[in-house]
């Protein structure tokens, strides 16, 4: 019937699924913004995966060889910090930390958010009410102050911050948990509201009439239509995670032994790099943060374009 103009129910429910299934990756790469995002992320992912191969092991005060706050040179392409460590080395290793924190946090957040959001929105009733109360509660908590407090508490609980899990110090995993705890609710709430509106759409009713099980409807009809939201939310969350991590480190809650971008920025600031014009100290980390978040957002938008049936219809 009205397929091209206002995609009919059938189109709505089927289109994204099929599009997802069949190589939307190709579609993604066909989009310059998507391509750009993918490339940037690929680069940083590479840095994160094999920092040692690229710049050798993380330099410490002991293994540092460079001059104090030396500007970029042949030997130190990005200059050195106040202990003579190569900024390049630090930044690359920081990439790993930051990315891991960001991704873990994003995963936790979005997973919780999506599941709770969809179920709560679809099941509705008392369950929904309760869940959203809780979500709302978490929403109003000032993430950052809560994060500060939780960090202190959890650290105190798990004891020494030097034990490692998968090469990541506990003190940093704390940050992941904290971010997860503090940001799942917005994801849940947003996805829920979308679910609610979808629930009213004709095609869901129809599916229900046909006798599809709730779980089936949620998976086949709701999920595909909130994927774009989930993606968009994941993007924001990742950005938020990186930001929160940066900010926490910025006020000194990071772990100096596992420099993240935020940790570096903090170090640069407390060393007075900005005032000393030692731009090479904070620009790499700063640029990395901006670039990665930027890339993620581009990627998110591209995915949105592809996965969002409405947009798809109008392109």
């Amino acid at each position, binding site marked *: 019937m009205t397929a091209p103009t206002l995609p009919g129910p059938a189109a709505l429910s089927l289109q994204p699924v099929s599009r997802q299934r069949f190589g939307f990756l190709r579609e993604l790469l*066909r*989009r*310059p*913004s998507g*391509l*750009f995002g993918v490339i940037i992320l690929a680069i940083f992912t590479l840095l994160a995966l094999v920092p040692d191969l690229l710049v050798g092991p993380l330099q*410490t*005060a*002991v*293994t540092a060889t460079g*001059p*104090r*706050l*030396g*500007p970029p040179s042949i030997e130190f392409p990005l200059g050195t910090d*106040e*202990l*003579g460590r190569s900024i390049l080395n630090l930044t690359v290793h920081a990439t790993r930390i930051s990315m891991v924190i960001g991704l873990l946090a994003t995963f936790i957040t979005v997973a919780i958010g999506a599941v709770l959001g969809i179920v709560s929105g679809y099941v509705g009733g008392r369950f929904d009410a309760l869940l959203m109360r809780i979500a709302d509660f978490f929403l109003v908590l000032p993430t950052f102050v809560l994060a500060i407090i939780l960090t*202190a508490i959890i*650290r*105190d609980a798990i004891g*020494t*911050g*030097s034990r490692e899990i998968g090469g990541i110090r506990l*003190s940093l995993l704390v940050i992941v948990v904290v971010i997860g705890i503090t940001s799942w609710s917005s994801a849940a709430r947003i996805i829920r509201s979308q679910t609610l509106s979808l629930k009213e759409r004709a095609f869901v009713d129809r599916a229900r009439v046909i006798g599809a099980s709730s779980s089936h409807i949620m998976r086949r009809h709701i999920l595909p239509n909130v994927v774009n939201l989930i993606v968009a939310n994941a993007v924001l969350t990742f950005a938020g995670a990186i930001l929160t991590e940066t900010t926490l480190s910025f006020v*000194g809650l990071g*772990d*100096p*032994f596992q420099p993240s971008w935020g940790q570096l920025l903090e170090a640069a*600031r*407390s*060393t*007075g*790099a*900005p*005032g*000393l*014009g*030692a*731009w090479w100290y904070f*620009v790499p980390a*700063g*640029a990395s943060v*901006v*670039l990665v978040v*930027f890339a993620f957002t*581009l990627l998110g938008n591209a995915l949105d374009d592809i996965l969002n049936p409405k947009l798809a219809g109008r*392109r």
Partner: protein
Amino acid sequence: MRSPLARRVRTFLAAVVLLAPTLVMTGGVQAQDQLVLRVGTDQKLETLNPWQSITYADYEMFTIQYELLVSFDINLDPAPGFADSWSSSADAMTHTFHIREGMQWSDGEPATCEDARYTYQFVLDVLASDDGYVGSGYLEPYLSSAGLESVTCDDAGNLIATTSYPTTLLTQAYIPILPEHIWSQYSQQQISDPAADGFFANEPVVVGSGPYHAVEWSPGEFIRMERNPNYWGTPGVPDQIVYQTFESEDTMDQALRTGELDYVRGTGANQFDAMQSEPNIRTAEGYANGYTYLSFNTRAKEQGYRGSTSALRDEAFRDALGYAIDRQTLVDRVLNGHGVAGTTHVPPYHVNWHVEPDHPRTFDIDEANRRLDAAGYPRGDDGRRIDADGKPIVLRLTWPDSEDHAADAQFIQGWFDQIGIGVDAFVTEEGALLELLPGPEYDTGYHADWDFYMWGWGGDPDPNSLLGLFTTDQIPAAINDCFYSDSRYDTLNTLQQQATDVAQRKEYIDEMQQLFYDAACYHVLYYDSELHAMRTDKFTGWTNQPPESGVPLFGFGYPAYMLLTDANATPTAGPPEATPTAGATQGPQPTATPTPTDTGGGIDSSVLLIGAIVVIIVVGGGFLLLQRRGRVEEEE
């Protein structure tokens, strides 16, 4: 209905237009009719109630507002304060202080011997009370350690103080003489305990006797002082003094550069180096009256004590570790040379009292290994040394999050690794650390669950307080945090407090330093310098206290303030004027070759440049792609 709205809109716009220029104007010509000395500090301006003082900043606040009974001159020698002359009896147990005549408090009330008597009597009462301390508990020890017994005023307006034993410490007592007519209204509780009802915070306007007194206080932000009209001496040159606290050291140094500050306390090593070569900025590096130390849990695994290995109890073990610490490297690399490698717990700042140990532990990995072998800590298969209980030694090293010792820790990690000692380093939240340190004596539920940690102590003009930290009776007070206990040391401490003959006292103090050093329960890492910087285009006459090894402000007494003179540069410190010198820093180190960091313009433009480039790349890149994407879409 329409026209009034339109009018309102127009008025609004007018306001905006009016405001816009004022932004720039006020930026330019700051109506600066008064000569204001602006001081930035990295420390909190905690309190105006002297008894609550903890930080240097706190001390500075009361130092400049209240006279000490006997003050300090620019050479740290006793100088006229509330008393203009003083003498002691032959047995040095009766001390007479002649209170300057005709003094007035800033509120016009006469300042007399009564006030001095009241203040000292207050301390005596406090010491007698079951609390035993007042506020932060930092001040009253000056009198207790001097053995003060009674204070009275004679008819001649002299303060007569008697001590239970001979002492010279009274002239060192760093206790502000407070106006009785103000303070006597409050109970000890109200003065001592912030939580008490009617706690006396001593809010502005403060009634004092010093050259300046606080007239405005925005807690955690700034304290503003004005000249005390009734100050007995020649008034200082600045009309006002503003003390401003900073969360970010960098912001503070920026402010000095732009001329928004005239003096900064506690600048970072790098900024300090950079500023040395800046026009109109003078830097001052002073010996720190304190030190950064490495403290060992010398009761590890004793009854009620935790800690990872009994080896920590072994003096030989700790001594050996001392040889594996290259203090000089720490000074060079961590402090950028702004400090002195540490030895004893009386810093060189106390030129008359500091001694070098007889057998200092010089950095020598082999020696350290030799001693560890000798002490019976063989290496295991993995190269780790084994303690008496046959388990590999891995020590937990920590420090409070309020300080940054990550670099020190990494060095120590590196060195100890070479002698087969594992080091597991991490920061601990300061509150948690304070919980961790004390042992059972402090209180039930405390069991010193730590191995070794880094922190620092600061001292007074007299070494007494620094020495007093390690007497046995300080263990239950959780001050003597390495649980050092030596009856000989305790006796010596009493002796040095009572010694009236300097040479005699020095002997005692020397021995105390030796004992404590050899016990190796503290390894003093370094005496980090005081790094201050000041502008010379507004005030001149900056003088260090003491001249050879000190810094102008945040010292003892206020002599340096009174030596300031108006550089009668343009009174304003408005940035526009400051622009030529703004940010004109030297490279991070004098040796730095002229890179982007040689001239002010250079720096900022370079930063600008980089920033711009980054933004352009990101925006441009994204933008181009987005555009191309746009086209693609249309073709789709």
